[in-house]
């Protein structure tokens, strides 16, 4: 029999039991739709985060810190525990290294738990995700990172994150107009050197939005507020910073400079002396746009592969469903198989006929699944946790043939055993079957 005729015959068989065939495809629909939804979700989220982060982590900048080094986590150092150990002398040394344009440092202040930031007598920092007050060099912020205003120039000024600015703007009557917070004075409460401090500072800059990360933070001038010290072996107590940020003169030398700086820290820095004495389990970690990108990609893919496993499980269930229905089909159509054989159909024809039918069921399921999957993908992007941000939507035309191909393959694979059974039926016996 020719493939075309196979298809026509298989199709007419499927339409005999429309409802049953539709139910049979459900597993495939669910499996393929899940896969499509996940692909849509993860590619949108990934592109979005990467574009946002590479915007914030300029390609000419990397940071070094002492933190917990876990094997195989790669760039995940981004989020792991870090401890202040980088000294002024280390900063000065790095600043003088060839290829280094600029260096900045930062460390954390311990915010007051109940009212870290107060505006006009009202606490405007919501507790969700914690609140951070960071002391940082004024040159840390570039124009790229600032949505409004500029960096601070002295201890009476502050830069706040987008979310903090939004909360203050809400107090001012219009949450959307974050620019109006510039020039307003806020109260920051934190503990410095064991002493409770409360400072009134003027907002001079608002950072761009970074969804889900470090949302609630205010930044203060490093030299005015930061005073964490450690005693370096062989000399007195010196200020230690958690992170050193390094800007390179030329992006083409980025990797060289980065490894030279890392090499310095690992061998002859004061931070290394401190680390060996105080935190022998920790190591030097670097953070850069590339590493952040990889980290995001890793996380998104971890999530995606988890959901894809659910999808493949659904496909497996779908495939068992098809196999089951095909076995029922073979039994129901025993007589028909006998007739087909009597009029000259070969065993191979019967085999192919049932395989075609199973493949067609799979393909139909998959073609239903494509719009369903896209719909759920859109739903996730529009009303899910990302509804606030306009994520780029990825829909590719090649999903259709790909999904239909996978559906057909799953169908055919499920049909192998039933079709083989059908082809082995003795025609004489089949013709007697009632």
């Amino acid at each position, binding site marked *: 029999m020719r493939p075309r005729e196979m298809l026509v015959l298989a199709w007419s068989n499927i339409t005999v039991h429309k409802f049953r065939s539709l139910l049979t495809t459900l597993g495939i629909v669910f499996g393929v739709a899940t896969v499509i939804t996940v692909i849509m979700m993860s590619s949108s989220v990934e592109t979005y985060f990467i574009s946002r982060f590479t915007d914030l982590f300029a390609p000419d900048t990397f940071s070094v810190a002492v933190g917990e080094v876990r094997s195989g986590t790669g760039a995940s150092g981004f989020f792991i525990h870090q401890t202040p150990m980088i000294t002024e002398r280390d900063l000065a040394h790095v600043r003088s290294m060839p290829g280094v344009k600029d260096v900045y440092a930062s460390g954390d202040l311990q915010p007051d738990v109940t009212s870290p930031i107060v505006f006009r007598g009202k606490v405007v920092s919501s507790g969700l995700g914690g609140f951070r007050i960071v002391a940082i060099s004024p040159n840390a912020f570039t124009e790229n990172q600032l949505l409004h205003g500029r960096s601070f120039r002295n201890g009476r000024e502050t830069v706040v994150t987008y979310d903090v600015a939004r909360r203050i703007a809400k107090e001012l009557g219009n949450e959307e107009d974050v620019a109006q917070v510039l020039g307003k004075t806020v109260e920051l409460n934190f503990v410095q050197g064991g002493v409770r401090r409360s400072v009134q500072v003027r907002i001079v800059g608002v950072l761009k939005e970074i969804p889900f990360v470090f949302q609630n933070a205010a930044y203060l001038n490093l030299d005015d507020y930061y005073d964490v010290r450690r005693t370096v072996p062989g000399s007195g107590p010196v200020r230690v910073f958690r992170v050193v940020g390094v800007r390179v003169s030329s992006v083409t030398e980025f990797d060289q400079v980065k490894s030279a700086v890392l090499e310095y820290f690992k061998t002859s820095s004061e931070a290394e002396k401190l680390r060996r004495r105080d935190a022998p389990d920790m190591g030097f970690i670097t953070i850069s746009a590339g590493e952040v990108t990889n980290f995001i990609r890793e996380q998104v893919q971890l999530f995606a592969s988890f959901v894809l496993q659910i999808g493949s499980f659904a496909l497996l269930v779908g495939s068992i469903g098809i196999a089951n229905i095909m076995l029922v089909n073979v039994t129901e159509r025993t007589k028909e198989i006998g007739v087909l054989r009597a009029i*000259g159909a070969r065993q191979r024809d019967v085999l192919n006929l049932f395989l075609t039918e199973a493949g067609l069921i799979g393909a139909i399921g998959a073609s239903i699944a494509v719009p369903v999957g896209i719909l759920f993908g859109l739903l996730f992007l529009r009303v899910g946790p990302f509804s606030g941000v306009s994520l780029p939507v990825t829909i590719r035309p090649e999903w259709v043939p790909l999904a239909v191909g996978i559906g057909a393959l799953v169908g055919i694979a499920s049909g192998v055993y039933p079709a083989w059974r059908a082809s082995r039926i003795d025609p004489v016996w089949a*013709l007697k079957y009632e």
Partner: protein
Amino acid sequence: MLELIDVWKVYRTGSVEYPALRGVTLRIEDGEFVAVVGPSGSGKTTLLNLVGALDLPTKGDIVLNGTSYTSLGRSGLNELRRKELGFVFQTFNLLSHLTALENVELPLIAAGVPRSERRRRALEMLARLGMENKASKKPTELSGGEQQRVAIARALVNNPSVILADEPTGNLDSANAKNVVELLREINKREGKTILLVTHNLEIAEYADRIVRMRDGRVESEVRRN
């Protein structure tokens, strides 16, 4: 010419052997119309299935126009069914989800005949049996007699040399039964097709050139008419 030479068929169910045919020898000339009669269980259907190449004899051989069945492989037997043999069944056995026309097309599909030629030949065959206006009807929309006509069209469409009919009138009332057997007789006369017809009905058997009576898997008697 169709020859059955000492044909045995032994069915085995577990350890029990049952010889359904016990040495049947028959010679059927081209264009002959032979009716096979005999009590239930005498081996008529078994005989027809063997001639229809759906099964092979346990012993003995069947030779159609010089071709020995036992020397043919599986694909040879398939080809024989596709080209030389046409089946008509008691219960019509039309595929219920296909139209009359599509049912008649089936053997041509199996033979790989291109679509347009297939359509033409199937329609022509239906027309010859006076069924052209029922071409697009499903089997459930046809009477028993009409269904059997479609089934006969299906058996004829491949232009086989032998038609095998197992009680083709068994499920029809006497008027329709008469119609069907007259149709077969006409096909036999006009087109020179060899017909092997199994029946319980002696009136139907009267249409044949020869009546073969079977009992206990053997040919009990043969009556040549006219």
